[in-house]
């Protein structure tokens, strides 16, 4: 990390010159560059092809999501969370409402917990498929990009069936879900896990894992040690690729990752947390592949026995919207509906602060909520894994070749919408 003052300027962006003059090149990578995927800007100083320094400029996609959160209520804001990490929007929906329910002190119904766990794992697969595919694409393998997108397409179809949208899902609500799943959905999920995913992961393995070009361009590239990964605040697959033993699903279990999730003594879902001590881009790729396999196992444990019962907590709790059948045909339903949507009513959270975090595909996605008792949060803080993982980027690329910058970037799976919020 550079600490010298940023005295030089290149195309409106400041950077710290290592040694002025001489044979040092300055190269601007981004903000509109195919390999950055979204809008990031790096000012690189090069000698030949060797990177001497890297200064990162972000904020091109800043949309004021945290400010918006202070003006939207707890159900409305879920729409904004879709736009954060748009590669796996379901995971953001769940993380947001997990934090809300932590604030309200709500306990979900068993059916809701199972459905949320399944879609959280589907979202993890969705995110990892894109990341692994793009890692292949950025290193020149277009086939490795198209194959995982087949499986991603199936996940999008599954999401479309339950919530009507493929990308911007907004599926969760406080204390429940937008609507129940369709009767045939569990069978489709099962078919996805048994028929689509195993060949998709197998194809990826055959294309990349022992591909000499891929291995040589990722092994030993972007190394970060175990202690540095902790010190820089890394979480998720990146940290686990550096040997950090941490997974919120195991360490602070929620949903069906916790024992006794249905109140009848059911044990938590069984899965392993893959850890590697490689610390480089190749290790990150392997961790993601292994996590997809574990996610498939988790879904298969749950898809067969989704418990019956309501998906929402009872409307008497005054925290959830009753379903439309009750609103139109019963007076209590109508009253509960009005209690929720009238501008001078709505949610009545306790005054205080709460933090709720989920293990999403990129790492710990947490929301820190402060409430003054009103219908909208007083402050919404999103702990964005991309932002915190990305800040040590200069340290990872300095000393490598310029083409390795792209390899490191795609291995980290930076989503600018979440980075800048």
């Amino acid at each position, binding site marked *: 990390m550079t600490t010298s003052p940023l005295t030089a300027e290149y195309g409106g962006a400041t950077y710290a010159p290592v040694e002025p003059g001489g044979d040092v090149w300055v190269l601007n990578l981004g903000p509109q560059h195919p390999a950055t995927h979204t809008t990031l800007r790096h000012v690189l100083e090069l000698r030949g092809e060797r990177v001497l320094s890297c200064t990162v400029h972000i904020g091109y996609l800043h949309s004021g999501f945290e400010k918006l959160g202070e003006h939207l209520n707890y159900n409305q804001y879920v729409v904004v969370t879709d736009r954060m990490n748009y590669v796996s929007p379901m995971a953001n929906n769940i993380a947001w409402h997990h934090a809300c329910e932590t604030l309200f*002190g709500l306990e979900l119904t068993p059916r809701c917990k199972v459905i949320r766990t399944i879609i959280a794992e589907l979202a993890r697969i969705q995110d990892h498929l894109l990341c692994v595919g793009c890692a292949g694409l950025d290193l020149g393998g277009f086939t490795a990009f198209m194959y995982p997108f087949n499986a991603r397409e199936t996940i999008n179809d599954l999401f479309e069936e339950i919530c009507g949208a493929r990308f911007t899902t907004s599926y969760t609500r406080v204390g429940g879900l937008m609507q129940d799943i369709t009767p045939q959905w569990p069978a489709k999920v099962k078919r996805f896990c048994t028929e689509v995913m195993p060949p998709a992961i197998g194809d990826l393995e055959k294309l990349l894992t022992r591909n000499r070009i891929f291995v040589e361009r990722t092994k030993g590239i972007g190394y970060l040690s175990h202690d540095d990964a902790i*010190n820089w605040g890394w979480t998720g697959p990146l940290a686990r690729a550096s040997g950090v033993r941490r997974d919120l699903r195991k360490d602070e279990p929620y949903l069906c990752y916790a024992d006794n999730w249905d109140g009848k003594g059911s044990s938590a879902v069984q899965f392993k947390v893959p850890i590697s001590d490689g610390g480089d881009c190749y290790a990150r790729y392997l961790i993601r592949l292994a996590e997809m396999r574990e996610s498939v196992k988790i879904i298969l444990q749950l898809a067969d026995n989704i418990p019956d019962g309501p998906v929402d907590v009872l409307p008497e709790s005054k925290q959830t919207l009753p379903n439309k059948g009750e609103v139109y045909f019963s007076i209590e339903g109508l009253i509960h509906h009005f209690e929720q949507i009238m501008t001078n009513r709505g949610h009545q959270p306790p005054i205080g602060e709460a933090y709720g975090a989920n293990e999403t595909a990129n790492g710990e996605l947490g929301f820190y909520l402060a409430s003054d008792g009103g219908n909208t949060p007083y402050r919404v803080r999103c702990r964005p894994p991309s932002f915190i993982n990305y800040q040590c980027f200069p340290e990872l690329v300095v000393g490598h070749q310029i083409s390795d910058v792209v390899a490191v970037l795609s291995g980290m799976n930076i989503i600018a919408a979440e980075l800048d919020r």
Partner: protein
Amino acid sequence: MLIAKFPDIDFAPHPLMTRAEKSHEQLCARVPPERLLEVMRFLRTDDRCNFEQLCDLTCIDYLNFPKARDRYGVIYSLLSITKGHRLWVKCFANDPSPQVPSVVSIWKGANWLEREVWDMFGVRFTGHPDLRRILTWEAFEAHPLRKDYPLRGRGEREDFERITRESA
């Protein structure tokens, strides 16, 4: 434990929100800015605390919050990976020049987080190696997440210099 080590500081330990189950409570301690670095170093290195990771660093503008006395509360969310516990530390600052010491020397990951808080709230971190704005542009003057900043801005977007084909 903190109270035993620093008897002269009033930490006022309290849960972020009172819960029926004690195990679900999220513990928060209050530290005055002038003692912050000392306390944080202790939390990072002491064997009983071992908070190796700064999980998050953020700020809340308590302008109209019920019963709030100070305006800016900088919140450090600490995480111990070996022990598996969390602690929230709050450090308050006030107008006209809110200031808090920087913890970059303890956790490298605080760098961008402190830049973000400076950008969004205007809380200065003394001793930060590179305190620039991070999400907005350098010429931007306001701090948008302050409670007295309007949701739709103060016309910065409209006043932005417009480059047309003729003037370029």
